[in-house]
């Protein structure tokens, strides 16, 4: 290996690492707020990328049907509950978000021609289809068991992952897709050619991280999420709804996931089940951060990206083995640093 290859691999590793970092942030966020280990994160990556690819291919993305279906189910459940509890004032909100919004999205997809949109608008529309699935999934799968143990939530999480992977296959088929790069530009930096897409990924990741940091530091909703993460009961006593916090954290996770998918779709071919492994690598990063620290999680994720890039050079067949075995020493280190015998929930 010479310097040039090392730099090339480093560039690859950091690009992928930036994506893993975004995902690991979302995982830490969801876990801290809801105690859900968000295995389906990867499906949002795939859905984001494939929805965008569908627009570009002039097809109707299957995620539209999922949005409409999930919206109808949520609306049915919530309307029944609202009628039983006699809280009619909630009805417009329920109908608006779960029935009218998907209908508007369908109208946009069918009446306008997304395949002729500029890229930016296509991206916005793809996000508009995929992101609302986050809170809907929280409502359907997690809200009824929100007080269960972490382990029950984890099994629910795995079940949601399976269902979404199956739906992904149904909607997008087994073939993979790749979208055109955001920018064809490239620069020569010394010996290395840096592509525009790489810069886009890094820039967008950094921007998103900064926006998230501002959101958590400066906005009332961000503070509400932080309060819930620190102490659920305490936050509830202060009037912060845990349901709202759960839905909001899932909304953010879905946004980060789908956006990550859109960022990597020009770099790698995305299949309906690609997201899972990408999400798990974000996980390895998140676990390095102990599912608690955002900066350490992000640093861990970049490390995972680099490890992956270099191991694909030396032992490409064993790339996944190496990346996922990394988690074991990390877990051991964590187990040595957390000492006391704790009572499991």
């Amino acid at each position: 290996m010479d310097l040039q290859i090392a730099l090339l691999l480093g560039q690859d590793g950091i690009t992928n690492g930036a994506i893993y970092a975004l995902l690991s942030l979302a995982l830490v966020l969801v876990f801290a707020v809801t105690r859900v280990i968000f295995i389906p994160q990867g499906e949002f990556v795939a859905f984001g990328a494939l929805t965008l690819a569908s627009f570009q291919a002039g097809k109707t993305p299957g995620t539209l049907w999922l949005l409409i279906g999930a919206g109808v189910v949520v609306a049915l459940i919530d309307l029944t509950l609202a009628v039983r509890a006699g809280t009619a004032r909630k009805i417009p909100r329920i109908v608006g978000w779960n029935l009218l919004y998907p209908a508007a999205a369908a109208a946009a997809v069918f009446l306008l021609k997304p395949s002729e949109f500029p890229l930016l608008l296509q991206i916005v529309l793809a996000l508009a289809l995929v992101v609302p699935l986050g809170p809907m999934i929280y409502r359907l799968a997690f809200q009824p068991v929100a007080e269960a143990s972490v382990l029950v939530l984890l099994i629910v999480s795995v079940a949601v992952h399976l269902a979404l992977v199956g739906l992904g296959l149904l909607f997008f088929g087994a073939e993979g897709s790749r979208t055109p790069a955001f920018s064809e530009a490239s620069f020569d930096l010394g010996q290395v050619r840096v592509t525009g897409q790489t810069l886009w990924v890094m820039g967008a990741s950094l921007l998103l991280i900064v926006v998230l940091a501002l959101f958590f530091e400066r906005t009332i909703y961000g503070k509400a999420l932080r309060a819930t993460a620190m102490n659920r009961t305490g936050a509830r006593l202060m009037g912060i709804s845990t349901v709202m916090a759960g839905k909001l954290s899932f909304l953010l996770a879905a946004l980060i996931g789908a956006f990550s998918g859109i960022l990597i779709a020009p770099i790698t071919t995305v299949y309906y089940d690609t997201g899972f492994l990408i999400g798990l690598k974000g996980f390895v990063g998140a676990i390095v951060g102990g599912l608690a620290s955002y900066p350490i999680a992000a640093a861990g994720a970049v490390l995972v990206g680099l490890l992956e890039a270099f191991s694909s050079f030396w032992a490409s067949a064993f790339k996944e083995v190496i990346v996922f075995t990394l988690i074991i020493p990390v877990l051991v280190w964590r187990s040595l640093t957390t000492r006391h015998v704790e009572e499991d929930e």
Partner: protein
Amino acid sequence: MAARLLFGGFLCLVLLAPQVASEFHVTLLNYIGLYAIVALGLVLLTGVGGLTSFGQAAFVGLGAYTTAYLSTAENLPPWLAAFGGSPWMGLLAGLLLTAAVAFVLGLLTLRLSGHYLPLGTIAWGISLYFLFGNLEFLGGHTGMSGIPALSVFGVELRDGRIYYYAIWAVLLVAVWLTRNLLDSREGRAIRALKGGVVMAEAMGVDTARSKVVIFLVAALFASISGWLYAHLQRFVNPTPFGLAIGIEYLFMAVVGGAAHVWGALIGAGLITILKQWLQDWLPKLLGASGNFEVIFFGVMMIFVLQRARDGLWPILTRLMPLRQVQRAVPQGAALPKKSIPAAGLVLLEAKNVVKRFGGLVANNNMNLTVKAGEVMALIGPNGAGKSTMFNCISGVDSATEGEVLFCGQAVTGLNSRQIARLGMSRTFQHVRLLPTMTVLENVAIGGHLRGSKGVLPAMLHLERAEEARLLAEAARQVERVGLKDSMFELAGSLALGQQRTLEIARALCADPCLLLLDEPAAGLRYMEKQALADLLRKLRGEGMGILLVEHDMDFVMGLADRVVVMEFGEKIAEGLPDQVQRDPAVLEAYLGGVD
């Protein structure tokens, strides 16, 4: 009786099934049996022990690949040659390899609390899967074929109808072993893992060991299933050992009823049949090919966890007349007892104990002694640091500074298990019981250190003599504290006062020379308090030392020989009950100062 009939009927069905069922259904039953063996391990690991694993499929793969490699490889390296050529040697090698891998993974990951373990299992589940697919000598992603058929006494088991009996015999033996294990001293320790770790450690149970035990048993069951699979299919490739199947195994256990051995069979049956059926119909229905059954399974799991978290088996047993309530009080010879220290001998001596939590000093320079044959009461207002002192003495927590001597031996820094072994036993202020176990079983956990038979004798039920003596001892302690009428009820159904009394019986079952009671009279009625005081007087008469934390002053002053009063983590008075009651510092602590 009804249960026996039902089980007999089930056995007849199992025996007759391959004679009447079609080829297709026999194959289906074979797979149900194979999957149920793995799910059974998960029942023990996840349902009973509370340790979730998504990685069992990898252990199935270890068993399958080991025998596949050893029974087909042409030129084995010399050190492996002895294991080559025979499926039976393949089984042995597979079990050894699985045990070794599981032991290492267990040591690495089982110390982790809660959610790290399942995440770890996902990680090594994926790692091993990719390893199977990328190792040249294991055939890569295409797999290995030409695995010989299994032969028993010279008869080759090539026919699925005959192989069926091998699979189901293994399954039934595994069920028998698991049930035996759960119904034993080791089994009670395992059942305490879910929600009773602190209590079990205080009773002398090595919970880390119990975790490794169930992890190994579950891995070995999976490995045997893999071995049977390899010789049934006579071909292996990585697909059936991936994470997706590992998740499916866990779903089987959860859907069937993760805390019940028969739940594994129900779950494996249900999921296997549903999968078969959905794989036939869904692609036709949806007009595309693919594993769409996962959508259904995912939604079904979410529904099960929301609506029936304990799975199907408890629902089924409610419909069947299976409730067997044991009524016979266990009989058995008395267990050996420790020699009783002479009255007046100093049992416990705490010297200058300091305990800090961050900046908070919960105990400051605490000194106290307890002698054999006396009741020492530790009193003080709420938050004075009494329970913290208890935890420092019994090793549930460790003192920041100072020294604790028990029977002349320094126990500072020892854990609660080691201290329990020396003859100290305790109750907890907030009762720590296993609500789904009977009163008798809860008390028997206290006697854990008085038995010695390990996991293997328990699985084979070779420890029945010792078990009878343990249960008889537990029954005697239950009677002694006056809970005889509730002996076979679930501990969770008792009133709070009775649960406290149950904790005392459990502590007594350990045959201690020093008893630590944390607010034993709270929640008791007047008559019950009288009975408790009588019991404690009797124990004192037998030479036991008793350290008591209590708020009921009538109870304390009528019983204690000496009293230590704490406030804000420090000792403010010590002496005879009468002296302490007149002590101005004590009066001020309890009643406020007089201006």
